């Protein structure tokens, strides 16, 4: 089990009011699984990703990463965990004034010593530069390596963010709606690129997708989030119209009063 979430909740304080971003989410993820995450904006997808990559910690419940409770991780242990989780952000989160190559190189920071970091500012290690160039080639940006990140188009920035994750070479890839700002064709290319990569290198992939057909076509398992709670968690073959209707309905029922537990499957990790 790479992730084991046990009724994880996350509250934020906003103007002295508690806002419930996630409410008692229970989820098990096996190594090498590919999961699509569906849900309206505000359903808690971004919060879930920030919990999964160790940026924030749960207000209640426990989150185990590879058997370790993330709440108890500190310093080096925390960095080691974060190194194994790569995130592609909704807004890409690139450093605008650095070049594409430098942004890609920064993916390797987690495994660089301080000395190597300092040396790398002047002259990055040869092995690292080669890896970074290879990553840029994979996403089709090799010719843009010297361009600043803020000079790239939205789609190119997206692919650059993917290259940074490839450079990091993590065990888990989290992708927070990376296709939201792309046109349909590019969105499909991006999805198939990430899904293919994960399948070939047996990486875990959790991706927030805003198009149902992409989710059912590329991902064996589909999870629906609604208003901070788990709405459904089913294999791709079981994604039906009524599930989606309740997920996207404006005045639908809250996830608490679903009819029965039949929609939650017990996924077992293959040995």
């Amino acid at each position, binding site marked *: 089990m790479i992730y084991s979430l046990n009724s994880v909740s996350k509250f934020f304080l906003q103007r002295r009011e508690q806002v419930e971003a996630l409410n008692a989410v229970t989820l098990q993820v096996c190594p090498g699984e590919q999961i699509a995450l569906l849900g309206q904006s505000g359903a808690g997808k971004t919060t879930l990703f920030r919990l999964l990559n160790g*940026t*924030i910690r749960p207000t209640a419940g426990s989150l185990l990463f590879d058997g370790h409770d993330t709440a108890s991780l500190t310093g080096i242990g925390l*960095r080691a965990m*974060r190194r194994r989780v790569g995130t592609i952000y909704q807004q890409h*989160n690139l*450093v*605008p004034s*650095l070049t594409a190559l430098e942004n890609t190189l920064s993916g390797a920071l987690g495994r660089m010593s301080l000395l190597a*970091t300092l040396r790398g500012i002047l002259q990055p290690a040869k092995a690292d530069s080669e890896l970074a160039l290879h990553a840029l080639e994979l996403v089709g940006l090799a010719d843009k390596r010297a361009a600043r990140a803020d000079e790239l188009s939205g789609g190119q920035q997206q692919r650059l963010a993917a290259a940074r994750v490839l450079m*990091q070479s993590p065990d888990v890839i989290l992708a927070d709606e990376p296709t939201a700002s792309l046109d349909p064709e590019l969105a499909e290319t991006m999805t198939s690129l990430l899904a293919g990569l994960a399948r070939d290198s047996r990486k875990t992939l959790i991706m927030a997708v805003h198009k149902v057909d992409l989710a059912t076509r590329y991902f064996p398992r589909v999870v629906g989030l609604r208003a901070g709670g788990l709405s459904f968690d089913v294999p791709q073959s079981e994604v039906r119209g009524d599930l989606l209707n309740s997920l996207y309905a404006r005045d639908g029922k809250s996830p608490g009063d679903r009819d029965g537990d039949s929609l939650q499957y017990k996924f077992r990790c293959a040995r």
Partner: protein
Amino acid sequence: MLSVVAGFALLAFSWWFAEIRPGVLFHPATAAAIWNFVSRLFPPDLSTEFLRTVLRAVTQTMATAIAGTLLSITVALPLGVLATGTLWNRGVLVAANDRFAYGVGWMASRLARTILGFLRAVPDLVWALLFVAAVGLGPLAGTLALSVSYSGVLGRVYADVFEHVDPRPLEALQSTGATRMQIFLRGVWPQAVPHLTAYTLYSFECCLRAAAVLGFVGAGGIGYEISVSMRLFEYGQVLTLLLVFILLLIVTDAASRYLRTRSISGATSERKIRSEGTSSLKLLTNKSRRLVAWIAVLFLMVASFALAGFVPETLTQAGVLSRSTGFVGRMLPLDLSWAFVNSLGTALLQTIAISLMGTVIGMALAVILAVPATSTLTFVRGDSPGKHGIADRALRWLLFWSARLVLNILRSIPELVWVLICILAVGIGPFAGTIALGLHTAGVLGKLYAETMEEVPLRPVEALRSLGAGPIQVLLWAIWPQARPLLSSYTVLRWETNLRASTILGLVGGGGLGQVIYNNVQLGFYPRLTTLILLIYALVLASDWIGERLRLHVS
């Protein structure tokens, strides 16, 4: 490559001319001198007798700053209007075919700009020296110096504000047949007022700092008391004066920030004030309250002018007016004898060296202090994973606030006071001036650096943190690349300010041109003073030119 070599050559040049002797810093005698100074700072002198002196000095400084600001506003407004290019020689208001009017307008605004530039370029302490020589010791000289110097600063800002108002309403007014005067009063002025108020309040703060320092050349106030107490080795008194000065700065800063937010956010805050007003002062009507406020302000102004030496006795005493005109006569013609001009070479190079070396030292210290003073680097988010024990939190808190405190102390103490302190450690000369400039610069730049790094977009920072980067890696890869252009241009701007400052460090023993100025004033060689002032003006023009190019280059 070439720029690296040039950089090292400049550094070597500065090292040589600023007479940097790091050995002196580590000499046991230096440590003893510093310890002697620091230990005798405590306890601060709080005797009633001395506090009465402090109170008098503080009121004098305040009065000088208020009167100086008011006078400079009255000079700056007409000059600023005249210097506004959009009113006279370009943009929608100027008829392209009227060549004569165009030519006159162009000349007038050029002339006004040049005058403002000159007033601004000559340091206020040099103006103070001139006025002390012309009208005698006391706050009157200080007030006049401030009003001349800040006319230059404010006039330039006013002209820039007038030029950058939205031109569309002006065009509309012009099409109704309004005269240029009407367009200014009804179109430009209303748009400019909030910014004018904000800048004027800000310049009052600067004026207050300057007013405190002018005393070093005999213009009264806190600076005068500090220099007297330093000379008497009464360091406890120095500490009291410095603490009071810093307190004064904090209070003024808070008051002007309050007034500034009110003046910028016009309508909404006005409504808020009205609702607050009804709760606190129910008995008075809006109108009568405004009247009371105006009377209070008027009283404050009159009192300031009186305390700043604008009383009949001082003004008529021994004919201040005739003395001043006589003084101007004695400054001319300027001394251009080869012997004198030739002797200025070393002092000039020394001044440039002090400014460069002081900026470099300040930069290095600022970086060291700014990193822990950047809250986004030092503190971790409250809800980030990992157990952050009490000890860990306390350590981070302590690190952050001590860095901020050191920066604030470095910044609040004026350069000239730092020179006096450094002289105790390393003796009179350019080395003391350089360290003093470096310390003050570290305070100014460190605060700017920390604030810039805090305001960098945080998304890339979060991305790197989440892939396992440590704090130093985040600093080098996410914060520095984003903050670099601003940090560089702040540093270049500071160097320009420092070059001006290094021309006056010598007035209290910090080397450079100031030393020459001081000597010639003491000896009464006023024609030489004219030459020196023109030299400083040329130096400042050159540094403006270089700085502008450098800033374009780095950003």
